[in-house]
């Protein structure tokens, strides 16, 4: 089975959803997560804190330089990820459709390089 990263992106500075919408999203996501676990597609999932609490560590001539994050000065930021097992891209896209509807935002599907030995 291949593994895919499903990542949720959001645009920084956009109005956050109303509390009841957030509640709805959390519920939809936990239903989806429970289904992933029951079907065996689950590897890992989690939501991230805002990018302004991130820290970047860079290699500098054998040493490292630690700076305040985020790494990318981009308006689009990562909000959370799923790692899922799927037979092929079509199966991964089916999961991604459910993920996008649950979290009400665009989801990027990216394959991992190595197929783990089952």
């Amino acid at each position, binding site marked *: 089975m*291949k593994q895919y990263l499903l990542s949720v992106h959001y645009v920084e500075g956009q109005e956050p959803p109303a509390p009841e919408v957030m509640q709805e999203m959390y519920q939809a996501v936990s239903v989806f997560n429970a289904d992933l676990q029951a079907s065996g597609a689950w590897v890992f999932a989690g939501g991230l804190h805002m990018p302004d609490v991130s820290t970047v560590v860079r290699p500098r001539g054998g040493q490292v330089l630690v700076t305040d994050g985020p790494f990318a000065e981009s308006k689009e930021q990562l909000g959370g990820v799923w790692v899922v097992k799927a*037979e*092929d*891209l*079509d199966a991964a896209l089916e999961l991604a459709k459910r993920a996008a509807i649950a979290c009400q935002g665009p989801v990027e*599907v990216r*394959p991992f390089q190595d197929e783990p030995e089952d």
Partner: protein
Amino acid sequence: MAPPDVASVFRAEYGPAVATLVRLLGDITLAEEAVQDAFVLALERWTEGGVPPKPGGWIVTTARHRAIDRFRRESTRDERHAQAALLHARDEPQEVGAVRDDQLRLLFTCCHPALSSEAQIALTLRLLGGLETAQIARAFLVPELTMAQRLVRAKKKIRDAGIPYRIPTEAELPERLVPVLAVVYLVYTAGHTATSGENLIQAELCDEAVRLARVLAELMPDETEVLGLLALLLLLESRRPARTGPTGELVPLSEQDRRLWNHALIDEGQRRVRDLLRRGAPGPYQVQAAIQAVHADASRTGKTDWWQVLDLYDLLLSLHPTPVVALNRAMALAEVAGPQEALAVVDALTLEGYQPFHVVRADLLARQGRGTEAIAAYDRALRLTDNAVERAHLQRRRDAAT
């Protein structure tokens, strides 16, 4: 240079052979390599001994053996591919149905929605049509290197992202057919608009689109839009001999020599449109085919039934409400209600960057004797036209408008 009969076998058998090898090997690049190896061998053998009775079967069997040889030589290759190839290495009967299924499977892979539409078209022409990268590049007016990179990148995505080789389930089919039909239609239009210097490519692309549409129609006889697309292409194809004049210049529909139209294609196209009307499940391709069927009637009656064309455009606009359809409808409206009324419709559309918009406006203005405005509109259209044949055609119309 291959003898002509060998060359024509190559052209006909490349796509089906690659499709079968993709199923056997599970990898497009390996399949292409194996088929190319087999063709090299075929060129040696066939030039002396003649083409075998079942050249397609010969190519597939040889390609399979070449692939196995390659795996044995290059042990770094994925063992599983080698096993898959060996497992299937028994000589399967060359069933026509099985070969078609392989092609259909590969077509759905090439037209997967996860690929860009440019990549979908390029892959379809390369893998199913067997066109050379250079030919595809010329047809789409991009450098050969760009097209080669596009193909490599698309094949890499299919492999790395795990785009499957399979025919979609019935539930998925309506959604998955949309890009497949769009690609086949775009292949045809690319052939239709190729410049006169590229006559060969023009014919290749049009032929390939019609062939793919026929394969789809045979495989999915219950999908009315598939049949609609085939009917549409047959009717467009029926007029191809009349579409360009002796020096390669573009001849508009109204000025075409109707004796040059291909009546066998018209008959088949119109028969298919009538069958579809009885099914009563209209869709955009079917309605476009019906419009072309009305135009084709002009070869018998000597005049076009513009009221019927307008009715069909009204239906098309309700099924597919886009400004481009509205623009085409306006041309039919001009024939029924006059250029002034049509121009009012056209001027309300926002299609500033769309070349045909300015061509239609220019013609409608010219027909009302508004020469200065017509010339300005032709100039805008000319700025958006790359194709030399079409430029010459527009230039003539512009000069006539003064």
